[in-house]
């Protein structure tokens, strides 16, 4: 019986649900010192002086280091890394773990206290007196573009880079010249605070005799972190072991190399004592990178029937104060998707990256792709109303391959989509939503003068998963490859150990990998142990982000299993005195074609490979194989989401009443895990549409850094989601899988805002800024009605 495709319960859950899972903060070591950070309350200021004397005298304090002290201690051989210099001339001001004379965002570290416990560290940090000289603040992209004052005093412009992707400028020009309909829309992707359930944390433990250091970090990327720690500290890579224990979510915010990590490692190394830090929630709003932060302008050119002729996009992207690991690349990850699921003859994209005196931005669930999907899907609705047809019809008229099934299709944004079949996902989503009835009810309410308007919104998204073909990354200037490594090892007792370079932080890799291995080797999934997230156990890997784990890491495991079976087959043939060509393998049993009574279990062969008493001449003992999978192409999952909202005209409140998602992530390994990913993803995208958004005042202070004011929706605010799936196997990998970690987020913000705008159309409202708070909606209604009530 096949395990792949069944909703097996997650192996990792009992441990996590009963509190047995060990997160970084749960790990205690003797002699540890806690770091307490002194952070800048100013978004931009010169540091005149730092007086740490009172803090140094405080009880339980081991040492206080000012930024000047730390920078003089020779702890770092280079600044924090940016692995994605998107253009050769990209501006990248040096970024050290502590501010060097000038602070550039609220929360930048200006001194560090080391104390016996975190409470004393926090108390002492309050005693450090810093004299700041405030400087002009660039508190928004608009400020940055105005270029009146500089984010860093050393800059000549706040612009970090200009990145164009205009495959055929003449064709683009012509498309707009020939258009009957022209959409010109601007959208704001607000800044998002990632809000993983577990905050970030770090613990660096030097070995007592010096030399080696173990870094526990709540990270998505232990392998990348290890390389980067070596590169920035000069500690030999071979002396660094990074362990990501249980990690409680990341959403991109744990895909970085952070000041606290580099402080902990280098101070622990220097002092010979363990050094640790766990972020507080309020600190997280300043010390962990944020997501989104883009001003988008999208233009569509279409003929009289609404068929697209061209799409032109410009982004002004908010980098924040510094380039973090992949800050500059995030908007570009979306660049290829601004044509969405549509046949668009001509395309042009430009992006300007801007520094601001705000917390740096970087990857956040979907990273570039939700933004793209939002812009094109919002613009398509606007086009539909210009053409005078429904939002479903405008999509059907423009789907790639006419909405029919396709494989390996070149799209104008220069990519080749692996496979797609968009028509059925729209059909199914509308059917599940009861679209016709909804429209009738909407009309009835409008006709009846109801103050509760119904809004129906849809979005057909496509995303880029399976990051990534290493060559493609090279072409984009990214500083690493996109492969993944796997080792599959059969133990003497017939159990299986899988070593994966992919590092879960809630996704259920242990379960999915067990299912793949169970089918490939014909063993019980319970007999498969998955090892990961420790660079000493799994030395090769490129970690988890960009919905890459299954399409890259999972495929590597499947391939390694194939190699194990190949070797086992040779041993089986040798044992059964048959030709390897005649061997058959099914359900974990090797047999000789034509004589099924003679059979050997793979476990038996594993034991034989271990004893090595009777192996074919020249064969190495043990049954263990490794592979590295570098995908030939990305994978392009897609789907159609439909949101139904009810808008209270009197209060402006938007209630999400129903949500239908029909997703296609290719072949599914564990449908329950897929559904879980879609659920969480939808909630997160709905969060951006209706609730969340980091807000800044003109001085660059975040005005909603706590969960009291930064509204992350809870299950109570979500309707029951109706999920369904279509299955269009990917051509990019032998498993036919695509990836689903970000899909929900990529489809949902656009679907919800399309629904809100649809509901508000009787008031003449055509757009609403995210998050669509009751106040904003109410005001839009008042403006539409022409005056406040």
């Amino acid at each position, binding site marked *: 019986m096949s395990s792949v495709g069944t909703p097996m319960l997650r192996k990792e859950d009992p441990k996590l649900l009963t509190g047995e899972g060990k997160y970084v903060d749960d790990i205690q070591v003797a002699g540890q010192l806690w770091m307490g950070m002194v952070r800048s309350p100013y978004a931009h200021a010169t540091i005149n002086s730092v007086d740490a004397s009172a803090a140094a005298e405080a009880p339980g304090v081991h040492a206080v280091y000012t930024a000047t002290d730390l920078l003089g201690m020779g702890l770092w051989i280079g600044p924090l890394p940016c692995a994605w210099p998107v253009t050769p001339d990209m501006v990248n001001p040096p970024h050290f773990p502590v501010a060097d004379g000038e602070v550039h965002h609220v929360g930048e570290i200006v001194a560090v206290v080391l104390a016996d416990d*975190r409470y004393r560290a*926090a108390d002492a940090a309050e005693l450090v007196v810093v004299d700041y000289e405030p400087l002009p603040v660039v508190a928004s992209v608009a400020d940055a573009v105005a270029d009146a004052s500089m984010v860093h005093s050393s800059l000549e412009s706040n612009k970090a880079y200009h990145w164009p992707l205009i495959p055929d400028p003449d064709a683009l020009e012509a498309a707009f010249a020939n258009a009957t309909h022209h959409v010109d829309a601007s959208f704001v992707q607000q800044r998002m605070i990632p809000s993983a359930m577990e905050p970030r944390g770090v613990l660096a433990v030097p070995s007592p005799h010096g030399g080696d250091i173990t870094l526990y970090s709540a990270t998505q990327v232990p392998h990348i972190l290890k390389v980067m720690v070596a590169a920035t500290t000069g500690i030999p890579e071979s002396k660094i072991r990074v362990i990501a224990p249980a990690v409680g979510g990341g959403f991109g915010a744990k895909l970085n190399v952070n000041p606290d990590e580099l402080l902990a490692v280098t101070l622990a190394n220097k002092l010979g004592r363990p050094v640790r830090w766990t972020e507080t929630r309020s600190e997280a709003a300043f010390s962990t990178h944020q997501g989104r932060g883009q001003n988008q302008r999208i233009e569509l050119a279409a003929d009289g029937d609404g068929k697209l002729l061209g799409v032109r996009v410009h982004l002004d992207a908010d980098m924040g104060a510094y380039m973090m690991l992949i800050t500059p690349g995030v908007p570009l990850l979306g660049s290829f998707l601004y044509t969405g699921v549509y046949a668009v003859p001509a395309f042009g994209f430009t992006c300007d990256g801007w520094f601001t005196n705000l917390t740096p931005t970087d990857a956040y669930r979907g990273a570039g792709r939700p933004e793209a999907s939002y812009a094109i899907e919002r613009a398509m609705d606007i086009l539909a109303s210009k053409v005078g047809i429904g939002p479903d019809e405008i999509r059907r008229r423009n789907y790639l391959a006419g909405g029919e099934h396709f494989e390996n299709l070149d799209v104008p944004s220069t990519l080749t989509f692996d496979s797609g079949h968009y028509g059925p996902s729209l059909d199914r989503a509308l059917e599940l939503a009861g679209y016709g009835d909804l429209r009738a009810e909407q009309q009835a309410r409008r006709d009846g003068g109801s103050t509760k308007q119904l809004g129906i919104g849809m979005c057909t998204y496509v995303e880029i998963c399976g990051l990534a073909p290493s060559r493609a990354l090279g072409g984009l200037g990214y500083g690493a490859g996109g492969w993944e490594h796997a080792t599959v090892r059969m133990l003497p007792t017939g159990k299986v150990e899988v070593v994966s370079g992919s590092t879960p932080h809630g996704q259920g890799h242990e379960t999915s990998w067990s299912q793949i291995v169970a089918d490939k080797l014909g063993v019980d999934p319970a007999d498969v142990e998955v090892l990961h997230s420790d660079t000493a156990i799994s030395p090769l890997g490129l970690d988890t982000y960009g919905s890459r784990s299954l399409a890259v890491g999972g495929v590597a495991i499947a391939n390694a299993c194939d190699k194990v079976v190949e070797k086992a087959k040779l041993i089986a043939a040798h044992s059964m005195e048959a030709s390897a060509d005649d061997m058959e393998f099914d359900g974990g049993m090797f047999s000789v074609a034509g004589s099924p009574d003679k059979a050997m279990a793979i476990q038996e062969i594993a034991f034989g490979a271990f004893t090595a008493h009777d192996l074919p001449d020249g064969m190495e003992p043990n049954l263990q194989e490794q592979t590295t999978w570098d995908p030939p192409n990305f994978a392009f999952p897609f789907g159609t989401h439909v949101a139904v909202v009810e808008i209270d005209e009197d209060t402006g409140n938007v209630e999400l009443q129903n949500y239908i998602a029909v997703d296609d992530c290719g072949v599914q390994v564990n449908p329950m895990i897929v559904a879980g990913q879609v659920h969480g993803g939808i909630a997160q995208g709905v969060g951006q549409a209706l609730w969340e958004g980091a807000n800044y005042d003109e001085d660059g202070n975040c005005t909603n850094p706590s969960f009291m004011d930064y509204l992350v929706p809870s299950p109570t605010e979500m309707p029951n989601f109706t999920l369904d799936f279509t299955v269009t196997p990917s051509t990019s990998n032998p498993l036919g899988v695509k990836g689903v970690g970000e899909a929900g987020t990529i489809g949902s913000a656009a679907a919800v805002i399309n629904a809100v705008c649809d509901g508000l159309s009787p008031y003449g409202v055509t757009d609403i800024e995210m998050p669509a708070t009751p106040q904003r909606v109410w005001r839009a209604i008042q403006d539409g009605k022409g005056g406040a009530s």
Partner: protein
Amino acid sequence: MIPASFEYVEAASADAAIAALTEHGDEAKLLAGGHSLIPLMRFRLATPGVLVDIGRLDDLSYINDGGDHIAIGALTRHRALETSDMLAAEAPLLRHVASQVGDPQVRHRGTLGGSLAHGDPASDLPAALLAMGGSVVAKGPGGERVITADDFFTGFLETALGEDELLTEIRIPKAGGAGWSYQKFNRRAQDWAIVGAAVQLGANPGVALVNMGPAPMRAGGVEAAIASGSSAADAAAVAAAGTEPPVDLNGDEAYRAHLARVLVERGLIEAQT
């Protein structure tokens, strides 16, 4: 997120708590359910030197029939209010409002006395006390005194309680079947109100507003309009008169004023039916 250091004293009785307050003066703070005080301490917006824990004074947790009123011990948890049969019969508005506070965890910890003594204009229960014309009993070194709801809330997080006084009891006149409504407008189930309106009709109609000024407040104009027989719509039209609503991400003054009118109208209509 990490409070400054403090001394902790567990009070064995109401009198012991008062003694501790007297001893430590403005250094001391009473700790009941901790669900308002501890968040403030974690933000270091409150840094009391001594915490006097009254959370275990079970003799101050009760809901009794006081004849013309219901007497409620200050340490009574929101959860006890929302499940009380006596309140269902005699003070249904209070019972319902309690059920609208935060989430179950909050309601199992938070106390009625703490919620009132905190004096937060965004809290739900003060509005119920005002609309129902209740009063509170304060006990200090010199004995007990009764303070009406109208005199109790004096400013932003300020009440008529003295530094050495303990709130021991809350008295709610029996509602006598009067119509009532509580309209809480918030964005997530567990959130404070952006604006709220508590309404109780009957002989002495009361309408109180949540988050429309520095302190919990009555909508006096609305009360007067109802008393003079105005329609719900007309009475609600003056709901925002004399208010000074806060301005935050959830709403500016104009929006909150509008919400107050909408919610009061909805409340009046619901209370009438």
